[in-house]
Structure formats: C-alpha cells, structure tokens
C-alpha cells in the first residue's frame, strides 16, 4: 500500500503549486471586487462578448494566465498522448485541481475536452475533436429535458431515420454554455424505443436549420443554462457520435468521469470557506466555534481521501460507480453544510451579493442537483451494495 504520488505526478503538483503561488495568489486582492461572473467558470459564458471595459480587463487577465500556463506545459493535461496531450492519470488530475483550488481565482487549465468526443471517428476528428483540443471550439451537453432530468432514460427527443439523415425533434433543458458553444452533443432516441435502448448521440452544429437556443435561464448559482429546441432538425448520419443506439454508454461515461473532480473542488472550496470563518472568529469567538470548524475540517479530509481513492481506482480501470456516487454525494452535501455554518457565524454581511460566502452559498446549493441529485447518488450506491453485497467495499 502506497499513498505517495509518483515522482512525475509529484513534480507536476509542484509546478502547479508554484503557478498558484506566483501567478494566481497575487491576483487575489484584484479579484475580491471582480464582477460576480468571475466565480467558477461563468466567465466563459456569453459575458465573453461583453463591451463592459471592466469585464474586458478581467478577461484580459484570464487570457494572460492561459498563455503563461501553456508556456509552463500546464495545458492539455488530460488529453491523450496521441492527440498531443500529457494524458496524466486521474490521480494526477486530482492533485492538479487540489492545488488550483487553494485560491479563489477562477482559473483552470485547459483545454478540457468533453471525454466522449474521443469516440469521434473519421471526419469528426478534424471537425470537432481537434478544434476542441486546440481551444477553437467548445461544446455543450444536451441530455436533460423538461420531463426527464435525474432519470435520463425517460428522454423523449426523437431521431427519426430518413434516408441518409436523421430528423431530430424535441426540447433539451439546461445545457450550460450552449449559447456560446459551437456544437451540442445531443442525446435522442430512435422512434419506438424506450428506456436505455435506442439512445443515440449526435454532434449538431450551432446554426443547423431547425436547431435553436430558445433562451438562457437565470439560476440561483448565477450560471445561465439554456433551453434548446429541435424542430425537424435534419442531420446527416455521419454526425452520429459512436454507434447508432449506443448513446446510453456515452452519457454514463461523461457523467462518471467528472465525479472525482467535483470531490476535490468541493474540498478546496470548503477549506477556503472555513478559512474565512477562522479569520472572522480568531479574535472574538474562537472558543465558541473551534469545535464545529474542527469537525468540518475532519470531514473535508475524509472527502479528500475518498476522492483520491476513487480516482486511483478509476486509473486501475476498476468499477468506480460506488466511489463516484459517494464522492458526488459526500462532497456536495458537505460543501453545503460548511457554507451554511459559515453564514451562521458571519451573519447577514455574509449574504452581501459579492461576499465570498454568498457566492459559495449560491453555488453550493446547485451542486446538490446538477450532474445527478443526491438521491440518485444514494440510489446508485445502494444498487451496488445489494448487487455485490459487502464485497462492494472490499479492499483492492
């Protein structure tokens, strides 16, 4: 049993730690009063085309950071080697994010490519995959619908074969950044199929006739996911990602891949929230709150350990359904509790719109829903438990 990172991974972690220390932490004072969108990844939204000089200035800072990161080799970390990336392990990617999350500067290394795009074939590779890797194109993910969220097998959008084409009809809810994306990864079902059968994934360019972004929807978290409408949207069969009828496996792969990042993000965010609390109480009420702070710190450490375990098992190609669901559930519920506690300590000023606690508060509530609500995670965990018995927890 060995918990050390490999020497390559440790070196990478150190480079990232230096980047955070030298490039990001010095920006913290500047970002304290940054426009609200510079929290999380929202600055990648359509605000990008804003004319507001203040927003432009901050966007300029972010672009400068991207260039510096690329020079340091901190780009395309999770892209496979055959596409010119570093193809670092899940564990290493967790270590990278752990370092990045030590600061509130909303910067991450790119370019993150939706993992299912590696299923691109033939002309799709040049048309979608490479541009995403190079950062020239971005994608949205269209799975949820007005009447199917937690249970995506209920999706109703249809893809009716018609000669060489498919004709798509339906509505998709909540794809984030669809309004700025170049294409959407859309899940639809073949006519007459139900459940997981017949689900097929299409790559559909923005601007394809019959596809429109109906609106963007303001949310508590400040993100603005979109509603997409497909009305007799005709796409050629070459736009199918993977195989016709194989879309279910793709949507599961997309979801599973992100869980462990959710864990380490929440770990960092929760620690930063507790740091705010510690600074608040240091001189006046340390006695009263030390116990609660200590409790949450312990839980945060437990989350970290669980996250690394899951990422390591994913690297070993082991079944990580339980770990992924456990991390998602534990991380998002914990971040929510920590933030709730922090607000209780801080009082009403913590709810000032630009206060770091208020930002986290709005963000944390949404994380318990997106990418599978807590109840679904419990369902997945119990299903594995009853399928495999206590062996589901056996040591590897």
């Amino acid at each position, binding site marked *: 049993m*060995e918990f050390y990172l490999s020497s390559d991974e440790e070196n990478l972690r150190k480079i990232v730690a230096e980047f955070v220390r030298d490039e990001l932490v010095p920006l913290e004072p500047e970002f304290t009063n940054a426009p609200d969108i510079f929290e999380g990844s929202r600055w990648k939204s359509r605000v990008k085309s804003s004319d507001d000089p203040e927003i432009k200035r901050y966007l300029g800072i972010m672009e400068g950071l991207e260039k510096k990161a690329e020079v340091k080799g901190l780009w395309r970390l999770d892209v496979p080697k055959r596409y010119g990336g570093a193809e670092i392990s899940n564990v290493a990617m967790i270590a990278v994010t752990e370092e990045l999350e030590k600061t509130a500067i909303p910067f991450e290394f790119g370019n993150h490519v939706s993992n299912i795009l590696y299923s691109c074939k033939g002309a799709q590779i040049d048309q979608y995959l490479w541009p995403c890797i190079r950062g020239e194109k971005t994608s949205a993910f269209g799975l949820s619908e007005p009447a199917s969220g937690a249970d995506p097998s209920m999706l109703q959008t249809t893809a009716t074969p018609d000669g060489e084409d498919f004709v798509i009809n339906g509505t998709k809810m909540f794809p984030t950044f669809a309004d700025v994306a170049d294409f959407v990864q859309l899940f639809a079902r073949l006519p007459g199929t139900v459940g997981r059968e017949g689900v097929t994934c299409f790559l559909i360019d923005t601007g394809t006739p019959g596809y429109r972004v109906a609106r963007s929807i303001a949310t508590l978290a400040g993100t603005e996911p979109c509603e997409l409408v497909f009305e007799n949207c005709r796409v050629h069969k070459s736009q199918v990602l993977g195989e016709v009828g194989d879309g279910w496996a793709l949507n599961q792969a997309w979801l599973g891949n992100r869980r462990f990042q959710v864990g380490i993000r929440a770990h960092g965010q929760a620690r930063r929230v507790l740091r705010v609390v510690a600074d608040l109480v240091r001189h006046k009420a340390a006695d009263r709150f030390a116990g609660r702070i*200590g409790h949450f710190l312990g839980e945060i450490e*437990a989350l970290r*350990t*669980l996250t690394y375990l899951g990422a*390591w098992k994913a690297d070993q190609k082991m079944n990580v359904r339980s770990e992924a669901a456990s991390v998602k559930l534990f991380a998002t519920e914990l971040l929510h509790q920590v933030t709730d506690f922090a607000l209780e300590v801080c009082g009403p000023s913590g709810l000032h719109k630009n206060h770091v606690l208020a930002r986290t508060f709005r963000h944390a509530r949404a994380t318990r829903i997106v990418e599978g609500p807590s109840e679904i995670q419990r369902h997945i*965990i119990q299903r594995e*438990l009853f399928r495999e018995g206590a062996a589901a927890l056996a040591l590897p």
Partner: protein
Amino acid sequence: MDLKLTEEERLIKDTAAQFVDRELIAREGVYLKQQAPFLPPGAPAKRELDAQAAAELNERARQVGLWSLDLPENLGGSNMSAVARVLIQREFGRSVLPFRPVSIPRFLFETQYGEALADGTISLALAFAEAHKTGELSRLQTFYREEPEGCILRDSSIFIANPRADLFLFPAREQGTQRLGLFAIQRDMPGVTIGDEVELTNDWIVARLMLRQCKIPSEQLLGYEYEAGAVIASEQLNIAARSLGIGMRCLESSIEHARNRVTFGRPLAQRQAIQWMLADLSIELRTSTWLTLEAAWRADQELSYFEEAALAKKRAAKMAFQAADTAIQIHGGYGVCKEFPFEGFYREARLLRLLYGQEHELDRARGERFIEA
C-alpha cells in the same frame, strides 16, 4: 499511488479473517446465548468467555502470529507494520466475542518488562485517563518529581480499563519542568492500590489505580513525550480498525437481512428508507477505512500521523455506532436480542467513541490549530 494490498498484507489480512471466522464467529452462538439466571429480571446478562475457550484461543492465536501484534523479531514477533496491525484488528472487530490481540506499546519490549510481556507471563494495562477526554495530555493532573532515591509520585487516582493487569503504564508530568514521563508500575509495588471496580455497560470492568505516597525506582520511568503520543495514536488506530470491523459486520448482516425479510409483500431491500440507511453507512465505512489505512501508512513511513490517527478514530468509532444502530433498526426485534451481536456492538461502539479523545475535544483541538495557523 498504489492502494492495492501487497502480497504480504493480503496474506496477513486473510489469515486474520480466517481466524476470526473459524475461531471467533463460530463460537459466538454459544457465547451469546449465555444466560444470567441469578440476576434480577431486566438486569443486563453478564457474559464471559469461559476460561477454557480463552486459553484455547490464546494458544491458537499464538500459533498463527495473532496473539500480540507488536512483538519485535528478537522476541518472536515479526515487526509488523501499522498497516498490517490495522488489517488484523479490523478483522477482529467483526466478532463480538471478547477476544483480540493484546496491545503492547513497542518501546516496552526494550525495557526490563520486555521478555515477560512478550511471553505473556505478565499482562499490561494502559492508564491514560486524561487521553480519554482530550486525546492528548496537555491537562494531565498526575505529577512526579525525581529525587536521588527514586521518583515520587503525587497522590492521584487514575481511571484504568483493565484492572486485573499486573503492570500499569501511565503518564505523569514532572513538577516544575512539566516534562512528560511514562511510568510503568507493578500492582504489588508499595503505595499502589486498585479499587472502585465498576462494570461498564459493555461488560468491561474498570477501576481506579490509586497512588498514595508512592515512591518508585527511577528505572520505572520508561518513556517521554513522544512515546506517550505514540501510545495514544496507536490505541486510536486500534479503535479505528476495530470500529471498521464492526461496520463491516453490521453492514453485511443488514444487507443479508434486508434481502430476505419481507414486509407487505416486498423485501426490505426494495424499501428506500432501508436502502438509504445502508448507502449512507457505506460512505462512512469507506471513508473511515481509508482514513485509517492512510494514517497507519503514514506511521509506517515515519511521517507525522498523530492528527490523522485521531481523525480516523473519531470518524471510525462514530461510524461503528451508526452501523450498529442501523443494523439494530433493520433487524428490528432481533436487533436488540442478546442472541444477536448487534446490541453488543452498539454498547461497545458507544464506548469506543469516548476513548482516546471524545469527539468534541478532538474537533476543538483540530479547529484551534486551524484558527491559529
């Protein structure tokens, strides 16, 4: 990072698991059905492992190297790693039978008591009362002073969990310097009395080690600050590991029972209330397992591990209590029957949460360090 057990670790774990299944769990039926006919109705039945069974188990545990896990090589042991000890204690935690490897702080094997402890002719009890409260010894109220003719201990009374032992190890602070010393004291030494025996709700006997005008030779001073910290951390890891075993057994039995028990036409396993209790428990079990293993691994790597051990013990013991509580709830009436192991786990886990650091004290210490940092 490689979280797979090594061949050796797997072998150790499997040996312990086999021993626990064949020797301990196999005897549980007889043990649990012991009645206490002479107690008034309602009094908890006191059960003991009968002397012959205990002797047999001692013998067999020795044969397979599971009697004392701390023995160094020169005294017939195998210098077992902390990870290996956790893997073993975790297996023993699965049985409610009051039998487990004896725990002897390693540095004692280098003292005058080493050989006697190693061959089992004397037994040891730890008297770390203060550590049960806070998980550390900063507020220790036992004092000593060193004089040319020996160490003079200030009169005190220390809570002990195993009063039948021959030798007691306890910490004391030197008056003035505040230096922490670890003393071993024999029960037959002048000035030592053991009294106020009480039975705890989990069938343990506890008592008080009373020191009155006690003067002992300086060679009874066997260790200092670091040894004391290591004793506490090592006991915390033992508790954490044992708690993991309790969690495993309760989870496994609950899954089994939920699959088989039918209410209103459907097995319990199909009820969301049951599913979620077990889902939540499995998360606690998984996280506590890896926190414990990581703390033990850190100990083996000679990294700092006291804080990690304290956290592992806090979370694991709490998880064990939750596990026993869940198992009782899912087993219903059987859950509280003394013929089943769950009520025993419930009583035991409640105590484990109070040993070597109560939760609020461990939390407070962790929080204070963070606020100061």
